[in-house]
Protein backbone atom coordinates (compact mmCIF):
# COMPACT_ATOMS: atom_id res chain seq x y z
CA UNK A 1 0.00 0.00 0.00
CA UNK A 2 2.63 2.54 -0.99
CA UNK A 3 1.85 6.15 -1.86
CA UNK A 4 1.96 5.47 -5.59
CA UNK A 5 -1.17 3.36 -5.36
CA UNK A 6 -3.93 5.80 -4.52
CA UNK A 7 -7.43 5.28 -3.19
CA UNK A 8 -9.01 6.40 -6.44
CA UNK A 9 -6.98 3.79 -8.34
CA UNK A 10 -8.21 1.14 -5.90
CA UNK A 11 -11.79 2.35 -6.39
CA UNK A 12 -11.51 2.22 -10.18
CA UNK A 13 -10.11 -1.31 -10.10
CA UNK A 14 -12.97 -2.29 -7.79
CA UNK A 15 -15.69 -1.01 -10.08
CA UNK A 16 -13.98 -2.16 -13.27
CA UNK A 17 -13.10 -5.59 -11.92
CA UNK A 18 -16.52 -6.18 -10.46
CA UNK A 19 -18.27 -5.17 -13.68
CA UNK A 20 -15.98 -7.37 -15.78
CA UNK A 21 -16.44 -10.48 -13.67
CA UNK A 22 -20.15 -9.92 -13.28
CA UNK A 23 -20.55 -9.79 -17.06
CA UNK A 24 -18.41 -12.90 -17.40
CA UNK A 25 -20.72 -14.58 -14.90
CA UNK A 26 -23.75 -13.49 -16.94
CA UNK A 27 -22.17 -14.90 -20.10
CA UNK A 28 -21.47 -18.25 -18.41
CA UNK A 29 -25.02 -18.24 -17.04
CA UNK A 30 -26.39 -17.65 -20.55
CA UNK A 31 -24.37 -20.58 -21.88
CA UNK A 32 -25.49 -22.80 -19.00
CA UNK A 33 -29.14 -22.03 -19.69
CA UNK A 34 -28.55 -22.92 -23.36
CA UNK A 35 -27.14 -26.30 -22.36
CA UNK A 36 -29.81 -27.16 -19.79
CA UNK A 37 -32.32 -28.76 -22.19
CA UNK A 38 -29.74 -31.50 -22.86
CA UNK A 39 -29.16 -32.13 -19.14
CA UNK A 40 -32.24 -31.40 -17.05
CA UNK A 41 -34.67 -33.86 -18.70
CA UNK A 42 -37.29 -31.12 -18.94
CA UNK A 43 -39.27 -33.16 -21.46
CA UNK A 44 -40.17 -35.43 -18.53
CA UNK A 45 -41.51 -32.69 -16.26
CA UNK A 46 -45.18 -33.69 -16.35
CA UNK A 47 -47.85 -31.94 -14.26
CA UNK A 48 -47.42 -34.85 -11.84
CA UNK A 49 -43.69 -34.19 -11.47
CA UNK A 50 -44.39 -30.49 -10.92
CA UNK A 51 -46.99 -31.42 -8.28
CA UNK A 52 -44.38 -33.66 -6.68
CA UNK A 53 -41.94 -30.76 -6.44
CA UNK A 54 -44.71 -28.80 -4.73
CA UNK A 55 -45.09 -31.62 -2.17
CA UNK A 56 -41.31 -31.65 -1.73
CA UNK A 57 -41.41 -27.94 -0.91
CA UNK A 58 -44.54 -27.72 1.23
CA UNK A 59 -43.40 -30.59 3.48
CA UNK A 60 -40.01 -28.91 3.81
CA UNK A 61 -38.21 -32.15 2.94
CA UNK A 62 -34.99 -30.17 2.40
CA UNK A 63 -35.02 -29.37 6.14
CA UNK A 64 -33.70 -32.89 6.85
CA UNK A 65 -32.65 -34.41 3.52
CA UNK A 66 -30.28 -33.40 0.75
CA UNK A 67 -31.27 -33.37 -2.90
CA UNK A 68 -28.25 -33.49 -5.20
CA UNK A 69 -26.25 -32.80 -2.05
CA UNK A 70 -28.08 -29.62 -1.09
CA UNK A 71 -30.18 -29.31 2.04
CA UNK A 72 -29.76 -30.59 5.58
CA UNK A 73 -27.49 -33.46 6.59
CA UNK A 74 -29.83 -35.14 9.05
CA UNK A 75 -31.37 -37.70 6.71
CA UNK A 76 -30.35 -39.53 3.52
CA UNK A 77 -29.73 -38.09 0.07
CA UNK A 78 -32.86 -38.37 -2.08
CA UNK A 79 -31.80 -37.57 -5.65
CA UNK A 80 -31.04 -41.28 -6.07
CA UNK A 81 -33.54 -42.70 -3.59
CA UNK A 82 -35.59 -44.45 -6.27
CA UNK A 83 -32.44 -46.29 -7.36
CA UNK A 84 -31.45 -47.05 -3.75
CA UNK A 85 -34.82 -48.43 -2.68
CA UNK A 86 -35.38 -50.09 -6.03
CA UNK A 87 -38.70 -48.59 -7.16
CA UNK A 88 -41.18 -45.77 -6.81
CA UNK A 89 -43.45 -48.18 -4.96
CA UNK A 90 -40.80 -48.76 -2.31
CA UNK A 91 -40.39 -44.99 -1.87
CA UNK A 92 -44.14 -44.57 -1.45
CA UNK A 93 -44.32 -47.45 1.02
CA UNK A 94 -41.53 -45.94 3.11
CA UNK A 95 -43.18 -42.52 3.31
CA UNK A 96 -46.54 -44.08 4.10
CA UNK A 97 -45.31 -46.32 6.88
CA UNK A 98 -43.68 -43.69 9.15
CA UNK A 99 -45.02 -44.05 12.71
CA UNK A 100 -46.89 -40.96 13.93
CA UNK A 101 -45.07 -40.88 17.27
CA UNK A 102 -41.68 -41.65 15.76
CA UNK A 103 -39.31 -44.45 16.73
CA UNK A 104 -38.10 -44.41 20.36
CA UNK A 105 -34.54 -43.13 20.61
CA UNK A 106 -34.07 -42.78 16.86
CA UNK A 107 -34.41 -40.18 14.16
CA UNK A 108 -37.72 -40.55 12.44
CA UNK A 109 -39.47 -38.98 9.49
CA UNK A 110 -42.81 -37.33 10.30
CA UNK A 111 -46.02 -38.97 9.12
CA UNK A 112 -47.30 -36.52 6.51
CA UNK A 113 -50.60 -38.31 5.78
CA UNK A 114 -50.16 -37.88 2.03
CA UNK A 115 -52.99 -39.02 -0.24
CA UNK A 116 -52.37 -41.71 -2.86
CA UNK A 117 -52.24 -38.99 -5.51
CA UNK A 118 -49.70 -36.97 -3.51
CA UNK A 119 -47.57 -40.07 -2.92
CA UNK A 120 -47.55 -40.77 -6.65
CA UNK A 121 -46.54 -37.16 -7.31
CA UNK A 122 -43.62 -37.08 -4.86
CA UNK A 123 -42.39 -40.45 -6.15
CA UNK A 124 -42.62 -39.19 -9.74
CA UNK A 125 -40.67 -36.08 -8.80
CA UNK A 126 -37.93 -38.12 -7.09
CA UNK A 127 -37.75 -40.46 -10.07
CA UNK A 128 -37.35 -37.46 -12.37
CA UNK A 129 -34.54 -36.00 -10.24
CA UNK A 130 -32.75 -39.34 -10.45
CA UNK A 131 -32.49 -38.98 -14.24
CA UNK A 132 -30.93 -35.48 -14.28
CA UNK A 133 -27.37 -35.35 -15.59
CA UNK A 134 -25.54 -34.17 -12.47
CA UNK A 135 -21.98 -35.12 -13.44
CA UNK A 136 -22.33 -38.61 -12.00
CA UNK A 137 -22.96 -37.56 -8.42
CA UNK A 138 -23.34 -39.07 -5.78
CA UNK A 139 -20.28 -41.35 -5.77
CA UNK A 140 -22.33 -44.47 -4.96
CA UNK A 141 -25.88 -45.60 -4.37
CA UNK A 142 -25.70 -44.83 -0.62
CA UNK A 143 -25.70 -41.13 -1.53
Amino acid at each position, binding site marked *: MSGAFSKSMARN*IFFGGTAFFFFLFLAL*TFDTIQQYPKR*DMRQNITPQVAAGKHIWE*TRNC*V*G*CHTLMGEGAY*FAPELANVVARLGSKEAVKAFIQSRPVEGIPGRRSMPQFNLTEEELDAIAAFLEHVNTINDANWPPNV*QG
Partner: protein
Amino acid sequence: MQYKSQAVATPYFIAAIGLFAGQILFGIVLGLQYVLGDFLFPAIPFNIARMVHTNLLIVWLLFGFMGAAYYMIPEESETELFSPKLAIALFWIFLVAGALTIVGYLAVPYATLAQLTGNDLLATMGREFLEQPLPTKLGIVVVALAFLFNITMTVLKGRKTSISIVMLLGLWGLAVFFLFSFYNPANIVLDKFFWWWVVHLWVEGVWELILGAMLSFVLIKVTGVDREVIEKWLYVIVTMTLISGIIGTGHHFYWIGAPEYWQWWGSIFSALEPIPFFALTVFAFNMVNRRRREHPNKAAVLWALGTGVMSFLGAGVWGFLHTLAPVNYYTHGTQITAAHGHMAFYGAYVMVVLTMISYAMPILRGRAANSNKAQVLEMWSFWLMTVAMVFITLFLTAAGILQVWLQRVSESPLPFMVAQDQISLFYWLREGSGVVFLIGLLCYIASFFVRGEEKTA
Protein backbone atom coordinates in the same frame (compact mmCIF):
# COMPACT_ATOMS: atom_id res chain seq x y z
CA MET B 1 -22.76 9.90 19.76
CA GLN B 2 -22.33 12.71 17.24
CA TYR B 3 -25.83 12.69 15.72
CA LYS B 4 -29.06 12.26 17.65
CA SER B 5 -30.64 10.09 14.97
CA GLN B 6 -27.95 7.42 15.40
CA ALA B 7 -29.97 6.39 18.44
CA VAL B 8 -32.40 4.46 16.20
CA ALA B 9 -29.70 1.78 16.01
CA THR B 10 -30.28 0.81 19.65
CA PRO B 11 -33.51 -1.23 19.23
CA TYR B 12 -32.00 -2.94 16.18
CA PHE B 13 -29.01 -4.11 18.19
CA ILE B 14 -31.15 -5.25 21.12
CA ALA B 15 -33.44 -7.24 18.81
CA ALA B 16 -30.40 -8.75 17.08
CA ILE B 17 -29.01 -10.05 20.38
CA GLY B 18 -32.41 -11.39 21.46
CA LEU B 19 -32.90 -13.32 18.24
CA PHE B 20 -29.29 -14.53 18.43
CA ALA B 21 -30.15 -16.13 21.78
CA GLY B 22 -33.16 -17.84 20.18
CA GLN B 23 -31.00 -19.09 17.35
CA ILE B 24 -28.53 -20.68 19.75
CA LEU B 25 -31.28 -22.35 21.83
CA PHE B 26 -32.62 -24.01 18.70
CA GLY B 27 -29.05 -24.94 17.75
CA ILE B 28 -28.78 -26.82 21.05
CA VAL B 29 -32.08 -28.60 20.27
CA LEU B 30 -30.81 -29.61 16.82
CA GLY B 31 -27.51 -30.86 18.19
CA LEU B 32 -29.42 -33.01 20.67
CA GLN B 33 -31.72 -34.37 17.94
CA TYR B 34 -28.61 -35.55 16.11
CA VAL B 35 -27.88 -37.94 18.97
CA LEU B 36 -31.29 -38.45 20.59
CA GLY B 37 -33.32 -38.77 17.42
CA ASP B 38 -36.73 -38.64 19.10
CA PHE B 39 -36.04 -35.53 21.18
CA LEU B 40 -39.13 -33.27 20.94
CA PHE B 41 -40.54 -35.47 18.18
CA PRO B 42 -43.16 -35.09 16.77
CA ALA B 43 -43.83 -31.67 18.39
CA ILE B 44 -40.78 -29.97 16.88
CA PRO B 45 -39.28 -32.16 14.15
CA PHE B 46 -35.70 -31.52 13.05
CA ASN B 47 -36.66 -29.68 9.86
CA ILE B 48 -38.78 -27.18 11.77
CA ALA B 49 -36.11 -26.55 14.40
CA ARG B 50 -33.50 -26.13 11.68
CA MET B 51 -35.65 -23.65 9.83
CA VAL B 52 -36.02 -21.62 13.03
CA HIS B 53 -32.25 -21.86 13.66
CA THR B 54 -31.21 -20.68 10.19
CA ASN B 55 -33.99 -18.12 9.69
CA LEU B 56 -33.31 -16.53 13.07
CA LEU B 57 -29.65 -16.25 12.06
CA ILE B 58 -30.54 -14.48 8.83
CA VAL B 59 -33.03 -12.17 10.49
CA TRP B 60 -30.79 -11.17 13.38
CA LEU B 61 -27.87 -10.53 11.07
CA LEU B 62 -30.16 -8.32 8.96
CA PHE B 63 -31.15 -6.48 12.15
CA GLY B 64 -27.44 -6.12 12.89
CA PHE B 65 -26.65 -4.81 9.40
CA MET B 66 -29.52 -2.33 9.51
CA GLY B 67 -28.59 -1.15 12.99
CA ALA B 68 -25.00 -0.79 11.85
CA ALA B 69 -26.09 1.25 8.84
CA TYR B 70 -28.24 3.55 10.98
CA TYR B 71 -25.32 4.06 13.33
CA MET B 72 -22.58 4.48 10.70
CA ILE B 73 -24.25 6.39 7.91
CA PRO B 74 -25.13 9.63 9.79
CA GLU B 75 -21.59 9.79 11.16
CA GLU B 76 -20.02 9.04 7.79
CA SER B 77 -22.35 11.46 6.00
CA GLU B 78 -21.96 14.09 8.74
CA THR B 79 -25.69 14.69 8.81
CA GLU B 80 -28.76 13.45 10.66
CA LEU B 81 -30.58 10.42 9.29
CA PHE B 82 -33.10 11.30 6.58
CA SER B 83 -36.04 9.94 8.61
CA PRO B 84 -35.55 8.48 12.10
CA LYS B 85 -39.31 7.90 12.34
CA LEU B 86 -39.28 5.67 9.28
CA ALA B 87 -36.38 3.73 10.80
CA ILE B 88 -38.34 3.10 14.01
CA ALA B 89 -41.50 2.15 12.11
CA LEU B 90 -39.54 -0.31 9.97
CA PHE B 91 -38.00 -1.79 13.09
CA TRP B 92 -41.41 -2.74 14.49
CA ILE B 93 -42.70 -4.00 11.14
CA PHE B 94 -39.66 -6.21 10.68
CA LEU B 95 -39.71 -7.47 14.26
CA VAL B 96 -43.41 -8.33 14.19
CA ALA B 97 -43.15 -9.97 10.76
CA GLY B 98 -40.13 -11.98 11.89
CA ALA B 99 -41.79 -13.06 15.13
CA LEU B 100 -45.02 -14.06 13.37
CA THR B 101 -43.02 -16.11 10.88
CA ILE B 102 -41.25 -18.02 13.64
CA VAL B 103 -44.53 -18.56 15.49
CA GLY B 104 -46.01 -19.81 12.21
CA TYR B 105 -43.20 -22.34 11.80
CA LEU B 106 -43.72 -23.68 15.31
CA ALA B 107 -47.49 -23.46 15.67
CA VAL B 108 -48.87 -25.03 12.48
CA PRO B 109 -47.65 -27.77 10.14
CA TYR B 110 -45.52 -26.28 7.37
CA ALA B 111 -47.90 -27.44 4.63
CA THR B 112 -50.78 -25.68 6.40
CA LEU B 113 -48.70 -22.52 6.79
CA ALA B 114 -47.97 -22.65 3.06
CA GLN B 115 -51.66 -22.98 2.27
CA LEU B 116 -52.69 -20.17 4.63
CA THR B 117 -50.13 -17.71 3.29
CA GLY B 118 -50.77 -17.93 -0.44
CA ASN B 119 -48.02 -20.34 -1.44
CA ASP B 120 -50.43 -21.82 -3.99
CA LEU B 121 -50.62 -18.42 -5.73
CA LEU B 122 -46.87 -18.03 -5.97
CA ALA B 123 -44.88 -20.99 -4.67
CA THR B 124 -41.65 -19.74 -3.08
CA MET B 125 -41.50 -21.77 0.14
CA GLY B 126 -39.73 -24.96 1.12
CA ARG B 127 -36.34 -24.14 -0.31
CA GLU B 128 -33.37 -24.07 2.07
CA PHE B 129 -33.04 -20.69 3.85
CA LEU B 130 -35.88 -19.29 1.72
CA GLU B 131 -38.61 -21.06 3.71
CA GLN B 132 -40.40 -17.83 4.64
CA PRO B 133 -44.08 -17.54 3.66
CA LEU B 134 -44.91 -15.20 0.79
CA PRO B 135 -46.12 -12.31 3.00
CA THR B 136 -42.82 -12.45 4.94
CA LYS B 137 -40.81 -12.42 1.73
CA LEU B 138 -42.81 -9.45 0.44
CA GLY B 139 -42.36 -7.78 3.83
CA ILE B 140 -38.60 -8.25 3.60
CA VAL B 141 -38.63 -6.53 0.20
CA VAL B 142 -40.74 -3.62 1.44
CA VAL B 143 -38.67 -3.14 4.59
CA ALA B 144 -35.43 -3.41 2.62
CA LEU B 145 -36.51 -0.85 0.04
CA ALA B 146 -37.79 1.64 2.62
CA PHE B 147 -34.60 1.15 4.64
CA LEU B 148 -32.44 1.66 1.55
CA PHE B 149 -34.42 4.78 0.66
CA ASN B 150 -33.75 6.18 4.13
CA ILE B 151 -30.05 5.36 4.08
CA THR B 152 -29.49 6.44 0.48
CA MET B 153 -31.21 9.79 1.02
CA THR B 154 -28.99 10.36 4.06
CA VAL B 155 -25.84 9.67 2.04
CA LEU B 156 -27.06 11.85 -0.83
CA LYS B 157 -27.60 14.88 1.39
CA GLY B 158 -24.27 14.55 3.19
CA ARG B 159 -20.62 13.62 2.79
CA LYS B 160 -20.03 10.65 0.50
CA THR B 161 -17.25 8.47 1.89
CA SER B 162 -15.89 5.26 0.41
CA ILE B 163 -17.17 3.38 3.46
CA SER B 164 -20.70 4.67 2.77
CA ILE B 165 -20.44 3.74 -0.91
CA VAL B 166 -19.29 0.19 -0.21
CA MET B 167 -21.92 -0.22 2.52
CA LEU B 168 -24.65 1.04 0.19
CA LEU B 169 -23.53 -1.21 -2.64
CA GLY B 170 -23.61 -4.18 -0.30
CA LEU B 171 -27.07 -3.34 1.02
CA TRP B 172 -28.54 -2.62 -2.41
CA GLY B 173 -27.03 -5.85 -3.69
CA LEU B 174 -28.62 -7.68 -0.76
CA ALA B 175 -32.06 -6.35 -1.72
CA VAL B 176 -31.64 -6.92 -5.46
CA PHE B 177 -30.38 -10.50 -5.22
CA PHE B 178 -33.14 -11.39 -2.76
CA LEU B 179 -35.59 -10.88 -5.63
CA PHE B 180 -34.40 -14.20 -7.08
CA SER B 181 -36.15 -15.88 -4.13
CA PHE B 182 -39.42 -15.25 -5.98
CA TYR B 183 -38.27 -17.28 -8.99
CA ASN B 184 -39.18 -20.92 -8.43
CA PRO B 185 -39.74 -22.85 -11.67
CA ALA B 186 -41.03 -26.43 -11.77
CA ASN B 187 -37.66 -27.37 -13.26
CA ILE B 188 -35.55 -28.23 -10.20
CA VAL B 189 -32.29 -27.65 -12.12
CA LEU B 190 -33.21 -24.04 -12.94
CA ASP B 191 -34.59 -23.58 -9.43
CA LYS B 192 -31.31 -24.68 -7.86
CA PHE B 193 -29.17 -22.62 -10.23
CA PHE B 194 -30.90 -19.32 -9.40
CA TRP B 195 -31.37 -20.19 -5.73
CA TRP B 196 -27.62 -19.67 -5.49
CA TRP B 197 -28.03 -16.17 -6.89
CA VAL B 198 -29.59 -15.35 -3.56
CA VAL B 199 -27.56 -17.53 -1.25
CA HIS B 200 -24.06 -17.40 -2.70
CA LEU B 201 -24.19 -13.85 -4.05
CA TRP B 202 -25.32 -12.82 -0.58
CA VAL B 203 -22.84 -14.55 1.68
CA GLU B 204 -19.85 -14.77 -0.63
CA GLY B 205 -20.64 -11.54 -2.44
CA VAL B 206 -22.52 -8.48 -1.28
CA TRP B 207 -22.56 -9.35 2.43
CA GLU B 208 -18.77 -9.22 2.36
CA LEU B 209 -19.04 -5.60 1.20
CA ILE B 210 -21.19 -4.86 4.24
CA LEU B 211 -18.68 -6.72 6.42
CA GLY B 212 -15.76 -4.76 4.98
CA ALA B 213 -17.49 -1.43 5.41
CA MET B 214 -18.53 -2.17 9.01
CA LEU B 215 -15.08 -3.36 10.00
CA SER B 216 -13.41 -0.37 8.33
CA PHE B 217 -15.70 2.03 10.16
CA VAL B 218 -14.89 0.53 13.55
CA LEU B 219 -11.16 0.36 12.77
CA ILE B 220 -11.07 4.07 11.89
CA LYS B 221 -12.75 4.86 15.19
CA VAL B 222 -10.74 2.62 17.50
CA THR B 223 -7.30 3.05 15.89
CA GLY B 224 -7.39 6.63 14.66
CA VAL B 225 -5.54 5.53 11.51
CA ASP B 226 -5.97 7.88 8.55
CA ARG B 227 -9.20 7.31 6.63
CA GLU B 228 -7.38 7.37 3.27
CA VAL B 229 -5.31 4.35 4.30
CA ILE B 230 -8.25 2.37 5.62
CA GLU B 231 -10.52 3.09 2.67
CA LYS B 232 -7.79 2.09 0.22
CA TRP B 233 -7.52 -1.25 2.02
CA LEU B 234 -11.29 -1.57 1.93
CA TYR B 235 -11.39 -1.15 -1.85
CA VAL B 236 -8.56 -3.63 -2.37
CA ILE B 237 -10.29 -6.22 -0.16
CA VAL B 238 -13.73 -5.90 -1.73
CA THR B 239 -12.17 -5.99 -5.20
CA MET B 240 -10.57 -9.35 -4.41
CA THR B 241 -13.82 -10.51 -2.82
CA LEU B 242 -15.93 -9.93 -5.89
CA ILE B 243 -13.32 -10.95 -8.46
CA SER B 244 -12.98 -14.33 -6.75
CA GLY B 245 -16.49 -14.63 -5.37
CA ILE B 246 -18.72 -13.93 -8.37
CA ILE B 247 -17.30 -16.65 -10.62
CA GLY B 248 -16.63 -18.61 -7.42
CA THR B 249 -20.40 -19.22 -7.38
CA GLY B 250 -19.42 -22.03 -9.74
CA HIS B 251 -18.30 -24.20 -6.80
CA HIS B 252 -22.01 -24.77 -6.11
CA PHE B 253 -22.76 -25.80 -9.68
CA TYR B 254 -20.65 -28.97 -9.83
CA TRP B 255 -23.35 -31.56 -9.06
CA ILE B 256 -26.72 -29.92 -9.61
CA GLY B 257 -27.14 -30.42 -13.32
CA ALA B 258 -24.98 -27.57 -14.64
CA PRO B 259 -22.35 -28.16 -17.36
CA GLU B 260 -19.07 -29.73 -16.26
CA TYR B 261 -17.00 -26.64 -17.13
CA TRP B 262 -18.18 -25.14 -13.85
CA GLN B 263 -15.85 -27.62 -12.14
CA TRP B 264 -12.97 -25.61 -13.63
CA TRP B 265 -14.37 -22.12 -13.19
CA GLY B 266 -15.60 -22.91 -9.68
CA SER B 267 -12.42 -24.61 -8.50
CA ILE B 268 -10.04 -21.95 -9.82
CA PHE B 269 -11.94 -18.88 -8.69
CA SER B 270 -13.11 -20.20 -5.35
CA ALA B 271 -9.53 -21.27 -4.61
CA LEU B 272 -8.87 -17.51 -4.65
CA GLU B 273 -11.67 -16.75 -2.20
CA PRO B 274 -9.46 -17.13 0.91
CA ILE B 275 -7.23 -14.28 -0.30
CA PRO B 276 -9.59 -11.40 0.56
CA PHE B 277 -10.20 -12.98 3.97
CA PHE B 278 -6.48 -13.24 4.57
CA ALA B 279 -6.16 -9.60 3.53
CA LEU B 280 -8.92 -8.74 6.00
CA THR B 281 -6.91 -10.33 8.83
CA VAL B 282 -3.71 -8.56 7.82
CA PHE B 283 -5.69 -5.34 7.50
CA ALA B 284 -7.21 -5.56 10.97
CA PHE B 285 -3.91 -6.39 12.68
CA ASN B 286 -1.99 -3.82 10.67
CA MET B 287 -4.37 -1.02 11.54
CA VAL B 288 -4.43 -1.92 15.22
CA ASN B 289 -0.61 -2.06 15.28
CA ARG B 290 -0.40 1.35 13.62
CA ARG B 291 -3.00 2.87 15.95
CA ARG B 292 -2.63 6.54 16.81
CA ARG B 293 -4.79 6.41 19.90
CA GLU B 294 -5.58 4.06 22.76
CA HIS B 295 -9.33 3.61 22.56
CA PRO B 296 -10.81 2.75 25.96
CA ASN B 297 -13.05 0.08 24.36
CA LYS B 298 -10.65 -2.87 24.34
CA ALA B 299 -13.47 -5.35 23.80
CA ALA B 300 -14.42 -3.78 20.46
CA VAL B 301 -10.79 -4.02 19.29
CA LEU B 302 -10.75 -7.69 20.28
CA TRP B 303 -13.93 -8.39 18.31
CA ALA B 304 -12.52 -6.56 15.28
CA LEU B 305 -9.31 -8.62 15.32
CA GLY B 306 -11.34 -11.77 15.94
CA THR B 307 -13.51 -11.07 12.89
CA GLY B 308 -10.42 -11.00 10.70
CA VAL B 309 -8.96 -14.22 12.05
CA MET B 310 -12.15 -16.25 12.33
CA SER B 311 -13.55 -15.22 8.96
CA PHE B 312 -10.26 -16.27 7.38
CA LEU B 313 -10.36 -19.63 9.16
CA GLY B 314 -14.07 -20.31 8.70
CA ALA B 315 -14.79 -18.88 5.28
CA GLY B 316 -11.28 -18.99 3.83
CA VAL B 317 -9.56 -22.13 5.13
CA TRP B 318 -12.62 -24.32 5.79
CA GLY B 319 -14.11 -23.18 2.50
CA PHE B 320 -10.98 -24.06 0.57
CA LEU B 321 -10.86 -27.43 2.31
CA HIS B 322 -13.73 -28.77 0.19
CA THR B 323 -14.05 -26.35 -2.70
CA LEU B 324 -11.95 -28.11 -5.35
CA ALA B 325 -14.24 -30.22 -7.53
CA PRO B 326 -12.41 -33.57 -7.12
CA VAL B 327 -12.53 -33.17 -3.32
CA ASN B 328 -16.07 -31.83 -3.33
CA TYR B 329 -17.24 -34.88 -5.26
CA TYR B 330 -16.77 -36.81 -2.01
CA THR B 331 -17.51 -34.13 0.59
CA HIS B 332 -20.55 -32.48 -1.02
CA GLY B 333 -23.57 -32.49 1.29
CA THR B 334 -21.84 -33.95 4.35
CA GLN B 335 -20.91 -32.71 7.81
CA ILE B 336 -17.86 -31.06 6.20
CA THR B 337 -20.28 -28.56 4.70
CA ALA B 338 -21.93 -28.07 8.09
CA ALA B 339 -18.53 -27.50 9.72
CA HIS B 340 -17.63 -24.83 7.18
CA GLY B 341 -21.05 -23.18 7.39
CA HIS B 342 -20.89 -22.81 11.16
CA MET B 343 -17.44 -21.28 11.41
CA ALA B 344 -17.83 -19.09 8.33
CA PHE B 345 -21.09 -17.53 9.50
CA TYR B 346 -19.77 -17.05 13.01
CA GLY B 347 -16.36 -15.73 11.98
CA ALA B 348 -17.53 -13.39 9.29
CA TYR B 349 -21.03 -12.15 10.01
CA VAL B 350 -21.79 -12.87 13.65
CA MET B 351 -18.46 -11.43 14.74
CA VAL B 352 -18.65 -8.30 12.60
CA VAL B 353 -22.11 -7.50 13.95
CA LEU B 354 -20.86 -8.09 17.50
CA THR B 355 -17.87 -5.85 16.70
CA MET B 356 -20.21 -3.06 15.70
CA ILE B 357 -22.48 -3.60 18.71
CA SER B 358 -19.47 -3.72 21.02
CA TYR B 359 -18.21 -0.41 19.66
CA ALA B 360 -21.52 1.42 19.26
CA MET B 361 -23.66 0.27 22.19
CA PRO B 362 -21.60 1.95 24.94
CA ILE B 363 -21.70 5.21 22.97
CA LEU B 364 -25.44 4.86 22.41
CA ARG B 365 -25.72 4.40 26.18
CA GLY B 366 -23.80 7.63 26.77
CA ARG B 367 -20.23 6.51 27.41
CA ALA B 368 -17.09 6.02 25.35
CA ALA B 369 -16.63 2.50 26.64
CA ASN B 370 -18.06 0.16 29.23
CA SER B 371 -16.49 -0.24 32.64
CA ASN B 372 -13.44 -2.41 32.89
CA LYS B 373 -15.49 -5.05 34.72
CA ALA B 374 -18.07 -5.19 31.94
CA GLN B 375 -15.37 -5.38 29.29
CA VAL B 376 -13.62 -8.24 31.03
CA LEU B 377 -16.86 -10.22 31.04
CA GLU B 378 -17.45 -9.36 27.37
CA MET B 379 -13.95 -10.57 26.53
CA TRP B 380 -14.67 -13.79 28.41
CA SER B 381 -17.73 -14.21 26.24
CA PHE B 382 -15.59 -13.58 23.15
CA TRP B 383 -13.20 -16.38 24.07
CA LEU B 384 -15.89 -18.81 25.20
CA MET B 385 -17.97 -18.42 22.05
CA THR B 386 -14.99 -18.35 19.71
CA VAL B 387 -13.20 -21.34 21.19
CA ALA B 388 -16.50 -23.24 21.39
CA MET B 389 -17.09 -22.51 17.71
CA VAL B 390 -13.59 -23.75 16.84
CA PHE B 391 -14.40 -27.02 18.60
CA ILE B 392 -17.86 -27.31 17.01
CA THR B 393 -16.12 -26.95 13.66
CA LEU B 394 -13.37 -29.45 14.47
CA PHE B 395 -15.85 -32.08 15.72
CA LEU B 396 -18.11 -31.63 12.70
CA THR B 397 -15.07 -31.88 10.44
CA ALA B 398 -14.08 -35.12 12.13
CA ALA B 399 -17.65 -36.39 11.77
CA GLY B 400 -17.60 -35.34 8.12
CA ILE B 401 -14.35 -37.10 7.32
CA LEU B 402 -15.64 -40.30 8.90
CA GLN B 403 -18.96 -39.95 7.12
CA VAL B 404 -17.26 -39.53 3.74
CA TRP B 405 -15.11 -42.54 4.41
CA LEU B 406 -17.82 -44.85 5.73
CA GLN B 407 -20.52 -43.88 3.28
CA ARG B 408 -18.67 -42.99 0.09
CA VAL B 409 -15.05 -44.18 -0.02
CA SER B 410 -14.68 -47.50 1.80
CA GLU B 411 -14.93 -50.76 -0.12
CA SER B 412 -18.31 -51.58 1.39
CA PRO B 413 -20.13 -48.25 1.68
CA LEU B 414 -22.58 -48.07 4.59
CA PRO B 415 -26.12 -46.72 4.35
CA PHE B 416 -26.54 -43.14 5.59
CA MET B 417 -28.15 -43.96 8.94
CA VAL B 418 -25.68 -46.75 9.74
CA ALA B 419 -22.81 -44.35 9.11
CA GLN B 420 -24.52 -41.73 11.29
CA ASP B 421 -24.67 -44.16 14.22
CA GLN B 422 -20.95 -44.83 13.86
CA ILE B 423 -20.03 -41.18 14.26
CA SER B 424 -22.40 -40.20 17.05
CA LEU B 425 -19.49 -39.70 19.47
CA PHE B 426 -18.50 -36.62 17.49
CA TYR B 427 -22.08 -35.32 17.56
CA TRP B 428 -22.02 -35.61 21.35
CA LEU B 429 -18.76 -33.67 21.48
CA ARG B 430 -20.23 -31.04 19.17
CA GLU B 431 -23.26 -30.72 21.45
CA GLY B 432 -20.95 -30.21 24.44
CA SER B 433 -19.17 -27.43 22.58
CA GLY B 434 -22.56 -25.96 21.75
CA VAL B 435 -23.40 -25.76 25.45
CA VAL B 436 -20.12 -23.91 26.06
CA PHE B 437 -21.10 -21.53 23.26
CA LEU B 438 -24.42 -20.91 25.00
CA ILE B 439 -22.58 -20.16 28.26
CA GLY B 440 -20.43 -17.69 26.33
CA LEU B 441 -23.55 -16.06 24.93
CA LEU B 442 -25.06 -15.76 28.42
CA CYS B 443 -21.84 -14.05 29.59
CA TYR B 444 -22.14 -11.73 26.59
CA ILE B 445 -25.70 -10.75 27.47
CA ALA B 446 -24.77 -10.40 31.15
CA SER B 447 -21.94 -8.01 30.24
CA PHE B 448 -24.56 -5.41 29.26
CA PHE B 449 -25.82 -5.35 32.84
CA VAL B 450 -22.46 -5.11 34.62
CA ARG B 451 -21.88 -1.65 36.04
CA GLY B 452 -18.65 -0.15 37.34
CA GLU B 453 -16.62 2.96 36.67
CA GLU B 454 -17.40 4.18 33.16
CA LYS B 455 -15.64 6.77 31.07
CA THR B 456 -17.95 9.42 29.71
CA ALA B 457 -18.32 9.84 25.97
